[in-house]
């Protein structure tokens, strides 16, 4: 690491405001358009968040009704590059109270002081103590040095969607299907869609090879060059064997590939299978339980360090606490199929608010699904230390 002795990082650059520009203009412009006065005013002000859109409620008015706090949310996509640029180079914390993103950014931005440590004893964080350690102490919200920089928001265990009759597995979707069906089965050859995002696709291939003892890998989400190289050699061999029909890159594409039956199996987001079933009929496509494990991801809510010196910190913690509560959990589980901490409170909320039996049963089933899937590896990250070599190796696969 001697190279680091004389470097100037992007973080140093940001302090000199060299990159402060378009991102600030865009985000701040959007915030202004969303309405609302400066944050540096009296309490009772709305909470401003910047993060991945999947963390959003379909209608934040529900939260306002419950908490009396308004939310102004600026969405971004899943690109960690864009997110880091916006947060760091544009000092978005000057305008935004909460950042919501996939696991990994807290490892970089927490120790740098860009995220504030969570005040676990804050009086508004009433649900913290009852939240399971599996969620609140997970790698999604704690840094590598153990700092608590976030509150868990949502999460899921990603695998692949499939048509059971094509794979010859049970039609109730309850079988543990091996990733071998995805990567090397003759049954699916030429009928597999593989996501072309390296952070999403490379680790699941590594998991498969590691699980079956074919490659020695220490950490599938943060592989050394040698480890990543072996995984990519395997993937190139499968690519040349014609295993993959397409390498997809967008959520809409996932839905289209399933709905058109262009492929038989696809590593994708769970909501894509739900959308495809709307077109094809219930239980046509299943989201796999797997033999080896899952791409377990989570979104954390992280407090901008600047927010700790503003006068709406109580509201910020009210919102953090809301993410741990039943109302948010129930709506996220019903609308997106995503899990999160304190799902029992979600079930309780649904019962108290007259939700249908089908919806309540669905929440319970969601809990069972998550319990079953989370028992297996692995937890993803968006910021592996070996990102450069992994990305380079992935390019080798794409170019083969």
């Amino acid at each position, binding site marked *: 690491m001697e190279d680091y002795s004389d470097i100037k990082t992007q973080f140093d650059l940001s302090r000199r405001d060299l990159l402060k520009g378009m991102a600030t203009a865009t985000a701040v412009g959007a915030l202004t358009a969303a309405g609302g006065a400066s944050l540096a005013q009296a309490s009772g002000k709305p909470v401003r968040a910047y993060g991945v859109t999947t963390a959003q409620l379909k209608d934040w008015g529900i939260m306002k009704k419950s908490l009396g706090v308004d939310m102004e949310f600026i969405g971004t996509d899943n690109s960690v*590059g864009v997110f880091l640029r916006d947060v760091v180079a544009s000092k978005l914390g000057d305008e935004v109270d909460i950042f919501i993103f996939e696991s990994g950014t807290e490892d*970089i931005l927490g120790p740098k002081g860009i995220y504030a440590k969570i005040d676990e004893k804050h009086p508004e964080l009433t649900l913290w103590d009852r939240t399971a350690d599996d969620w609140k102490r997970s790698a999604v919200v704690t840094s590598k040095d153990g700092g608590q920089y976030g509150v868990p928001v949502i999460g899921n265990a990603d695998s692949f969607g499939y048509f059971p009759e094509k794979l010859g597995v049970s039609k109730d979707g309850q079988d543990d299907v091996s990733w071998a069906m995805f990567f090397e089965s003759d049954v699916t050859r030429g009928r597999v869609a593989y996501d*072309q995002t390296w952070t999403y696709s490379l680790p699941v291939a590594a998991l498969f090879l590691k699980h079956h003892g074919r490659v020695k890998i220490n950490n599938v989400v943060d592989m050394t060059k040698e480890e990543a190289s072996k995984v990519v050699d395997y993937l190139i061999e499968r690519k040349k064997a014609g295993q993959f029909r397409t390498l*997809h890159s967008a959520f809409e594409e996932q839905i289209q590939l399933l709905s058109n039956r262009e492929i038989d199996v696809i590593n994708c987001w769970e909501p894509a299978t739900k959308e495809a079933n709307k077109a094809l009929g219930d239980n046509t496509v299943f989201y796999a339980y797997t033999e080896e494990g899952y791409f377990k991801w989570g979104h954390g809510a992280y407090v901008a360090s600047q927010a700790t010196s503003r006068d709406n910190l109580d509201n910020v913690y009210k919102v953090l606490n809301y993410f741990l509560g039943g109302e948010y959990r129930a709506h996220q589980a019903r609308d997106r199929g995503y899990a999160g901490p304190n799902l029992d409170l979600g079930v309780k909320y649904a019962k108290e608010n007259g939700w249908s039996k089908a919806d309540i049963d669905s929440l319970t089933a969601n809990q069972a699904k998550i319990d079953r899937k989370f028992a297996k590896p692995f937890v993803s990250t968006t910021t592996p230390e070996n990102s450069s070599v*992994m990305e*380079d190796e992935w390019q*080798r696969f*794409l*170019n083969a």
Partner: protein
Amino acid sequence: MPKKIWNWFVLASGNVWVIRTFVLFWSLIVLLPLMLLLIFSFFETKSFVTIYKPSLNTWVSLFDSGRFEVALRTLRVALTITMIELLIAFPFALWLAKGCKSRTAKAIFLALLTIPFFLDISSRTIVWRAILGQNGLINTVLLETGLISKPVEWLLYSEFSVHFGMIAPHFPTMVLPIYLAISLIDDDLIKASEDLGASPLQTLSRVIIPLSMPGVLAGTVFTLGPALAAWIEPGMLGGGFVNLLSHSIESAYTALRYPVVAALSAFTIVVLALLLSAVLVLTRRTASMEGLFRRMHQ
């Protein structure tokens, strides 16, 4: 443009201070960023952090990861598209400029050529997936008529589909400058050629083509540039199997690998500059970019 203002421009363009100011301005907004780009390519990124210590590591990694091939593949695809467009656009532009006598028809065709500029390219491209896919229209028709026994796979997610998808969006940028150049050819010149006994082929090769070269050159530049930066068509129709520069750069960006982005961009700019220089040298006797504008003014 009023003659007085034009004369002022002509006078000013000969003034040494105006030229110096322009060169300085041009250097600042174009050349300086390019120089910075080149310099940045000699740094590297580790764990999302750029290390400002000069090395060749980033350039070496371009070869190890196959990104060098991506740049060459992108050039090959872009040049192929440019050639295809030229072959289609030239006869069409010739017919539109000199063959089509109906003003209404001409106006309709010109309007149709501008339509691509007003429609979202993603929407136009995604339609082809439903037509070219294994369960798409073409395969369904071919299977139903018994012409094939199993779906043709290369229709979609192949270099063929990427080329196919790029033809329509890039057609206007090639055909419009050529149309403009041919329109400016005096009909009397063509008539004189015929009167002197030239065959239609001789008139085409000795009069029309040389005089339309400024348009061909402009069309080539306006088509090649966007084709090099194509993102939608390779993404939607290539199925990840036609990895071009834009996606490679995007992938590097996800890991905040600015030096890789800089190296790829610098490499492409150098190759493109060499390519355009070669074209300019080869066509120096018959065409120049300023020639088109000079003739427009006449």
